[in-house]
């Protein structure tokens, strides 16, 4: 894959605070990359560096094969969409879209053509004569996307574009952004703290913490093979269950907790592990089966239900394995009640084992 945006050894310091350190990232042509992380992890900062809105302390940035490290934002071939829309309040939608083109002294017909195309794609033609004040949140964000669109650039940067919208609009616009990407096939870099947005939109997700990319991979891999405890805990709702115990990797691998040993049959260790290593077994709530399904699983156990949360589409229930709290998710058709004894089971091969000391996947 030819790389469209490429960040090499990027560092950014504010005074003595290192926000980003030796960060390297390659985004392929036409790829949808999501930067995901908790607030303050440096994801927006990274995006601002790529856009050229922040001066970096060290490293290089390439966009479409050109070294743009010292270029002005306008010369980088990017369009950007902000969380607060950042529309010019005193200009009509049309002028908002054409402002950048007018600044670049583009011929009037060309401006006309591009505005028409962008407003057609985003279906905002009826709004062209209005001012941002008269638009709803969703419409405003569509205009903001349009402003990036008219620039006819290779790379789109989105800085939490949906975070100011309510839940319904957010899922509507999410689909629209996905549709837009499929139609335009531009490179898009999208910053969010919402894992649903990340999972649904991304070709690849970069999960960041403290200015460092923890894992960069497809949504499926990030979800099923988290490389460390942070990624495992950050992705997924309800969050992954973490059971404390000891890893025995030699011979017949197993995970030992108080009065209970779970065989790790079929689990592929990534690193050589010894015996009696303090470890953590991570299990996704939906990977735990209940009732008849559980008995077919490689490992099953009797357990008592503590709390039941019916979600409509499915049910989340709380129970205990070896005295440690565990949630599991099952079909809402299965009748569950607090105090009820059930069989729960799982396939250890689908779990994730982490070294407790380093937090890395074992």
């Amino acid at each position: 894959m030819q790389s469209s945006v490429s960040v090499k050894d990027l560092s950014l310091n504010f005074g003595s605070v290192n926000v980003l350190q030796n960060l390297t990232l390659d985004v392929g042509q036409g790829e949808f990359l999501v930067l995901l992380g908790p607030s303050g992890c440096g994801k927006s900062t990274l995006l601002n560096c790529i856009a050229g809105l922040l001066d970096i302390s060290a490293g290089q940035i390439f966009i479409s094969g050109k070294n743009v490290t010292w270029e002005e934002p306008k010369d980088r071939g990017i369009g950007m969409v902000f969380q607060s829309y950042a529309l010019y309040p005193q200009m009509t939608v049309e002028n908002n879209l054409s402002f950048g083109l007018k600044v670049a002294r583009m011929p009037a017909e060309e401006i006309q053509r591009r505005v028409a195309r962008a407003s057609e794609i985003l279906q905002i033609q009826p709004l062209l004569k209005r001012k941002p004040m008269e638009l709803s949140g969703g419409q405003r964000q569509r205009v903001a996307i349009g402003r990036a669109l008219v620039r006819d650039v290779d790379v789109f940067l989105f800085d939490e574009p949906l975070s100011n919208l309510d839940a319904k609009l957010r899922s509507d616009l999410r689909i629209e952004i996905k549709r837009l990407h499929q139609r335009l096939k531009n490179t898009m870099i999208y910053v969010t703290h919402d894992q649903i947005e990340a999972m649904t939109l991304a070709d690849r997700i970069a999960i960041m913490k403290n200015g460092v990319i923890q894992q960069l991979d497809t949504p499926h891999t990030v979800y099923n093979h988290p490389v460390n405890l942070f990624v495992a805990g950050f992705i997924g709702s309800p969050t992954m269950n973490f059971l404390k115990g000891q890893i025995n990797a030699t011979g017949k691998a197993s995970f030992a907790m108080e009065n209970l040993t779970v065989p790790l049959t079929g689990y592929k260790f990534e690193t050589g592990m010894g015996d009696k290593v303090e470890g953590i077994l991570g299990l996704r709530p939906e990977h735990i089966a209940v009732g008849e399904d559980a008995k077919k699983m490689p490992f099953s156990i009797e357990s008592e239900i503590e709390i039941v949360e019916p979600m409509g589409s499915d049910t989340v229930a709380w129970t205990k394995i070896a005295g440690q709290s565990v949630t599991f998710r099952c079909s809402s058709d299965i009748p569950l009640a607090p105090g009820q004894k059930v069989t729960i089971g799982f396939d250890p091969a689908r779990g994730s084992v982490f070294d407790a000391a380093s937090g890395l996947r074992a």
Partner: protein
Amino acid sequence: MTTDSFAAGGAAAMARSKVDAATGPSGPKPKRISAGRIGIYAFLIIVAAFFCLPLYVMLVTSFKTMPEVREAHLFDLPHNFTIEPWIKAWTSACTGRDCTGLAPGFLNSVKIAVPSVIISIIVASLNGYALTFWRYKGAEFMFNLLVFGAFVPYQVLVYPIIIGLRELNLFATLPGIITVHTIFGMPILTLLYRNYYASIPVEIFKAARIDGAGFWQTYFRVMVPLSIPITTVAMILQVTGIWNDFLFGLVFAGRENIPMTLQLNNIVKTTFGTVEYNVNMAATILTALVPLTIYFVSGKWFVRGIAAGAVKG
């Protein structure tokens, strides 16, 4: 509002919100007039009257003839209504040997105020814009220095500025007094503009940069159109401040350019025999008319802008 209408309102509220024995209170809670409330209103009315009374006396006196003024019935309405004192104050009241009235002073004040207001607003809004969005090295220090300037008493600086202007050959000239007003308006106006711009989402500035607008284009095409409310406030502050100024006019304006306030002072102080109270009153009202008009016309904007500029940032 009188106490009677309060009582009536209270009774109406009582009628709407009957206390039913079965269900207990329902509907709006009845409003009662307490003695304390009456006291507060009485106090407010008295205080308002206290401040309005001198204005009333000025007004009625300015429309009286001199013989009537001499009768010293301060609060009576004029018997022989005349606008002669107003005409005299404007055209022919004497300061020393010149009997030109206030008119030349008015013109001078306009000549001083208009350029001073325009220049100080342009410079201050640029200051605020640069300090907010183009955070160059030392921006914070410059800003603190400017704010500190707002706390320095003017009088301390008068003598150094006299010398400075003399060296620049600007002392006692129109450009000189305009410069002085511009400089002294800077701290408060910059503060006003900086706080206003700080309340504008920085993303708008970033979006303009991505759109390729530079320092001046962002300023003129994005920021200036957004600055109308705060500019209204700045204009009111500056026009009022510069129009009412006495000290700088006295020291820096020079003989040719004495502003209206100074002219007024000279008229009031010049007496031949009797003091022409009616003319003095008319002259005073005329001088105060410009700031008063501005305040009444744009009072709403004034409050709105102060709130917009001061709350955030």
